[in-house]
């Protein structure tokens, strides 16, 4: 890892993450207060990284954007933003407009919130958020947008409703499997009889989001993404939150259900039924693989390279559910010490295999980390090699897999080499999908 650069960053900037999130909300329309190129950068990031899914409510290059030039840099861009919002309301259909700032407008110091207030006072459903790209990664942009929604869109003071929960922690587009994963998590929560607002699924509505303050618990399926937003939600609306890992595989799903049921004080029989149903579905279906799994010797050593959600979740799935040997886990996000601590704790809880976790943003350095932990044969005839192996990562890890002579599956951004729509890995059934995808990669040449 370098202190001076990030190699092929596996995300875009905070403005990009924010734009992805708004574009995925029901009726959400981002309005970028930005130079023209930001929108294109995000569209091409999706094109190359999000499993062939580009756009959102506003197609790739349809996002309203003030397209700032030197004039606005010199004289300020408030007037141009005002004009852009005014005209956006005439041309673009939306339920919630969100003005998002860029590096340029942050440095120039435009007062976007005052422009936004002007329109709010006219009854327009509009928010503003400071998402200037230098503020951080796209995951932070996702968090910032959630905070803006919680502060300015979610109604305060509504009575708590028993059995209602909000869930987030999966960032649209940055997790190429966001649709499927959100549906998987929604399904888990619904199996406990809960009413779920997940913000970004087809089931969600702006009205549901507006009444998110009624929830008795916020569930964040991430140790990093959306945590600040959860803290903010609690300050604003008094709803506590539970942070879990991304529940991939029956072990994590079971633990997830237990944790949620525990926090909500749900009846034992409800939890037991959900656990039984989920595990039964998983294992009774998996059973069909029993012969081939043994006969074809499908157990693998593994390297897991992923973002803060996937690194831990995939490692746990391999170690606890599939019975593989994930010997190296690489988390590719640039995290602060506290966030790293949370990931370390999560990995520390993994059973069966003791994972080795490194924080490394640069893909080409991964093989060095592996060699340090698992030395080469160095000419020895009898050598306990890192083989047979499997690489779970992004599409960048193809080169690593090639070097190891191992099959590979792209899961974490960027996923350039798969078409993804609503496939997901979170939830009991989706765990089976992951088994299918992993083993299919091994037997592809059969």
């Amino acid at each position: 890892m370098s202190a001076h650069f990030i190699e092929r960053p596996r995300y875009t900037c905070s403005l990009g993450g924010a734009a992805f999130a708004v574009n995925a909300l029901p009726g959400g329309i981002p309005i970028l207060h930005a130079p023209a190129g930001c929108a294109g950068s995000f569209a091409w990031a999706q094109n190359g990284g999000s499993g062939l899914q580009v756009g959102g409510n506003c197609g790739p290059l349809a996002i309203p954007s003030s397209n700032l030039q030197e004039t606005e840099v010199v004289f300020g861009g408030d007037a141009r933003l005002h004009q852009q919002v005014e005209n956006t309301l005439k041309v673009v259909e939306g339920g919630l407009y969100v003005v998002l700032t860029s590096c340029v407008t942050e440095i120039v110091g435009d007062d976007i919130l005052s422009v936004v207030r002007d329109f709010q006072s006219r009854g327009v459903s509009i928010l503003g958020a400071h998402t200037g790209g230098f503020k951080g990664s796209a995951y932070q942009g996702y968090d910032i947008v959630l905070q803006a929604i919680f502060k300015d869109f979610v109604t305060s003071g509504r009575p708590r409703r028993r059995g209602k929960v909000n869930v987030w922690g999966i960032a649209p587009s940055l997790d190429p499997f966001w649709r499927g994963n959100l549906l998987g998590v929604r399904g888990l929560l619904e199996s406990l009889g809960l009413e779920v607002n997940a913000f970004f699924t087809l089931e969600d509505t702006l009205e549901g989001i507006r009444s998110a303050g009624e929830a008795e618990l916020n569930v964040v399926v991430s140790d990093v993404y959306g945590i600040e937003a959860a803290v903010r939600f609690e300050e604003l609306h008094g709803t506590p939150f539970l942070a879990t890992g991304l529940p991939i595989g029956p072990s994590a799903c079971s633990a997830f259900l237990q944790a949620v049921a525990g926090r909500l004080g749900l009846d034992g029989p409800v939890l037991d039924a959900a656990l039984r149903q989920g595990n039964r579905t998983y294992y009774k279906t998996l059973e069909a693989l029993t012969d081939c799994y043994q006969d074809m010797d499908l157990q693998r050593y593994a390297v897991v390279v992923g973002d803060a959600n996937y690194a831990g979740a995939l490692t746990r799935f391999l170690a606890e559910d599939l019975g593989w040997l994930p010997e190296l886990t690489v988390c590719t996000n640039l995290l602060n010490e506290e966030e790293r601590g949370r990931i370390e704790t999560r990995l520390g809880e993994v059973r069966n295999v003791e994972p080795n976790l490194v924080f490394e943003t640069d893909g080409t350095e991964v093989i060095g980390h592996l060699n340090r932990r698992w030395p080469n044969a160095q000419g020895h005839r009898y050598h306990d090699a890192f083989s047979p192996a499997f690489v779970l990562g992004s599409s960048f890890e193809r080169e690593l897999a090639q070097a190891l002579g191992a099959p590979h599956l792209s899961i974490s951004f960027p996923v350039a080499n798969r078409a993804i729509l609503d496939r997901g890995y979170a939830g009991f059934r989706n765990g089976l999908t992951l088994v299918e995808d992993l083993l299919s990669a091994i037997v592809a040449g059969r």
Partner: protein
Amino acid sequence: MSCYDQKVAPRREDRLKTCIAHSGGVCGMGGKAKACMIDDGERGFTQGSICLLLVALAILDSLPETVVLIHGAVGCGSCAHSQNANARSGSAVRFGQAKDAIWLSTALNEVDVISGAEGKLRSAILEADRRYRPKSMAVVSGCVPGLIGDDIDSVILELQPQVSARLVPVHCEGFKTKIWATAYDAVYHGIGKNLLAERNPAVERTPVSAEDERARVLEQEKLKRTVNLMNVSSMGRVDEVELERLLQALGLEANLFPVFAHPDSFHKATRAALSVSTCPTHDDYFLKQLQEQFGVPYLIKGMPIGIRNTSLWLKDIAAHFGLGVEVERLIEAEEREVRAALAPFRTLFEGKKVYLSAGEFRALVTAQLMEELGFEVSGIRMFHHDAFANDEYDKLAETARQDYTINVANCQPFEEANLLKKVKPDLFLGHVNGNGTAAKLGIPTHTIYNTGLAYIGYRGAFEVARRLHRTLRNPAFNRNLSPWAQLPYKDAWYGADPFSYLNTRKDAQ
């Protein structure tokens, strides 16, 4: 003083008076002036598009043994995720192995913005040089360095003696130009100043043997027949092969430049007998330099898309080499063969209305190809307008059955949606990320540019026809999607004048 004496290439709005916002009829567009005669009518409602940084990276990411260091916020350069697919397929088809491009970001944060980031850039260059040992390193600046006053040129000047890579500054501060085609000038500016000198040139010596002398003479003979064939990434290998084939038929060799060319081979361009542009939008800045500094003459006229334009393009090159007879023979044979092959398609396409949208030159010459295939052009949109394409407007005006709308727009799909609802074409050809609007309206669409597909030359004309035929044979994907997919526009917008927002940006106050 040459543009190359400046740190930064001038903006195209200044150098060429290029504009991005206009509407007019095809018959009135082809002015004869050397510069664009249209005042820009910028919009008061705009949609995001791209900036020169994206275009520059598309070229730079293709260069072998090159690291692209983006000095900017972490999102500048995330376009490279898409471009990496091109870098991989392009290297696979040229070098036999798919290879990921290497791009880095200084990922400027709030501290950097406040205290300046030249120090960070300095350390990043040194570390990248040590880690990757590249032959060249492009240092590309985004908006933030331009705002906080980082001087990347000084940093590069200071560090060049300490690193083994040749450093190439490329200025891509997006807010400084609305014409993203300035990217071609920005990249060529960096290449022209830093990569054209030969690395460790062989010492001139008297030939020691007859073989040496023979090799020297052969090399010189070859250079007399070598043509720089400019490709800044709008042609894939399949199109390069077609043009190489045609040039070889005239006894000429192609030196493809600059995409996928090795940075240590760039000096070859200075020794060629002629430079030929494959798209006038791209190359004038650099071709002038090659002529002024190295005496390499150039041709920058037309684009070899469509039968007639391919033949015209070849004739100009042949004329330069005195190959008039040879080229007539070649063209006659090629045209006869491809026209015969296209005949069955023509009857299928006859009378169908086509709408096109792309870069100005590409859109205009592809429109002519569409006419050759039997389609009727019903409208053309282009990313910008300058004077390079005046002749192409004239050609289209001659064949137009009626005056149709030209819409100059740096994307702006809201205008496109409005136009398409009114014009209702049978087919739409749009640029990458520019087909969604038509597709969601249920119109059969085909991409006008994709580096994996053939478009150029006689082969391209036939392959385009073949692809359009299959597009039209079963357009069910778009037709089925259309009733469910929604464009993000209000119903009232479709009733409005599509150009309601032209010339209104000036009203912001």
